[in-house]
């Protein structure tokens, strides 16, 4: 374990939005594939989440034109578990609301084909975190599964947080490497465990 005593935020310190209507989450063919690949055993579904994924799903019928905003992206990824602590990325402040950027800014009536870029800057808990790539991969996979297909997800290490930023950023941006990683049993097992707390 690289960092045995990380700073942990309490649930009350995490950014939330009270009584906000949730959005439909579209599942395209690619995310269906990812879902197949990433399917996890039921017994892993432990509630570490302050936002229940099921709640979002059940409200699919109330589909509103409301756009996906930074808070919603945050809610999707803050509940991912750290690969070595049984604590969420939100609580560890690996993902932070101000480090999520949506371009162009969310607007109500955009064309479903218009590309929307989501940039997430992650802050690994220590500078030499060997698992930065795995955490980044978890964030990317989570968002690609959950977001509509016109979203492009860019995950980078926040400047100065990690000593091998460029190397990790390049790996995380490489579609082919990400695809191959999801077919690697060891990595897949790790990602399954990390994402298990999201539902």
């Amino acid at each position: 374990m690289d960092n045995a005593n990380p700073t942990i935020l309490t649930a009350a310190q995490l950014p939330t939005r009270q009584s906000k209507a949730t959005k439909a989450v579209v599942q395209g063919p690619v995310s269906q594939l990812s879902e197949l690949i990433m399917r996890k055993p039921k017994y892993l579904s432990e509630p570490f989440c302050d936002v229940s994924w099921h709640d979002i799903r059940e409200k699919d019928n109330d589909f509103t034109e409301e756009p996906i905003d930074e808070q919603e992206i945050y809610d999707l990824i803050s509940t991912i578990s750290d690969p070595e602590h049984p604590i969420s990325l939100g609580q560890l402040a690996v993902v932070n609301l101000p480090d999520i950027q949506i371009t162009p800014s969310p607007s109500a009536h955009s064309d479903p084909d218009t590309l929307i870029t989501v940039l997430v800057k992650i802050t690994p808990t220590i500078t030499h975190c060997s698992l930065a790539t795995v955490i980044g991969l978890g964030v990317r996979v989570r968002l690609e599964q959950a977001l509509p297909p016109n979203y492009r997800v860019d995950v980078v290490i926040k400047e100065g947080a990690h000593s091998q930023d460029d190397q990790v950023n390049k790996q995380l941006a490489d579609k082919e490497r990400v695809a191959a990683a999801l077919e690697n049993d060891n990595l897949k097992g790790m990602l399954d465990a990390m994402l298990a707390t999201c539902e």
Partner: protein
Amino acid sequence: MASATSHRRCPPMSSNSTIQLFALPHFKPDLYERAWQSIPHPHAPLIATAHHKSVTIFSLSTLSSHSTLSGGHERSVRSIAWKPYATPNKLCLVTGSFDRTAGLWRWEEEGHSSSDALDITATRDSSSDKEDKDWEFTLVLEGHDSEIKSVAFAPGGQYLATCSRDKSVWIWEDIGASESDDEWETVAVLNEHEGDVKAVAWCPETNRRDKGRYAPDCLASASYDNTVRIWREDGDGEWVCVAVLEGHEGTVWGIAWEPRPEGTRYPRLMSWSADCTIRVWELKEEDEEEDKEPQLQYAWGGLRSIPNTMRRSMKDEWECTDILPKAHTRDIYSAAWSQDSGLVASTGSDGILAIYEEEAAGPGILNGERHATDAEANAELDGDVPMTNRHDATPKKQWYIKTTKPNAHGPYEVNHVTWCKRYDSACPPERKGIEEMLVTTGDDGIVRPWQVIR
């Protein structure tokens, strides 16, 4: 050179002819999962699409499934290469997989000895029960330590190149006694790249006479290390890197050779990258006759002052002569250079399908005389547009964007584009096998033909 360091601020749109793209009905069935690439057969009206652990062969006549290759790989098939010169009624291809292996597959038309194999294969009933039985997985090529990203046959079919995330390029030679005798051996393992090797491509056969050290059997490789490397056989069976092409500022996703060079020029090479640019590279050929007059060499600086024996150490000099006008905002995953028209098509993460053409810079404009304004001249000095180059007496050719099609696969990323001949029923009979179309392959599992209209 200056032009290699930045791209133009404004994509020039040609004022001359324009090109329009129309989506034709896509191939059936939908694959419903990410498809990586679709490779047309060199002669037969077939196209092979890699998706998940399988390859689906589509007929270009019926735009529907012809056959499927499955069960050979434990992980996704990333790339496909048809073996050139396979005998009639027989098909042969190689698959490169994330499971680290390359597979050789053969398909034989049963009960037909007709020489008219093309029609038979094209119209075969796709619902046939025997569909999957016809492809035989005949050989596994093992050796790479991690995912194979690309496979490519040399034009003669004798050599196969494979490349991998393990940073190596392998060259395999067909040493079988006959076409059906599948025996291959490794002739080279090339380890000079510093990152994943994303693609390999062999120099095409051209009309030019064999010019000494610029002989055929030349391989190019593109890498995660942002470079392209050129490899040649040194005459003693050793494959050596003769050039490193540097300039891209991101992963080089792929390379394509100029399929039909002007006159006897050496084919140029095109490369495309995560840096959203497409570059064109040209070999600076040294005249072999100069070698016979060594005293002349000392009149020049640089390489020419190196003793003759050193210059024989097989180094190519390649130069980036053009950067295509910018059409993309994200990684360019694929581009294709047409043998018939010389048009280039590109696509990628942004879902845009773009077409470019190389044409004279404008009526009556020659090299060195093309600055209408001070601003343009300054732009050239700043390196924003290419400096003048090679043929001083001929009109400068320049690349123009002819059309861009956003959302070629709706909101999805497009992984591959290729030129391919039309055989479908909507094509006029006299144009079948002649008219070119584009085929794009996307994350949506759709394989889509495009009519290209001037």
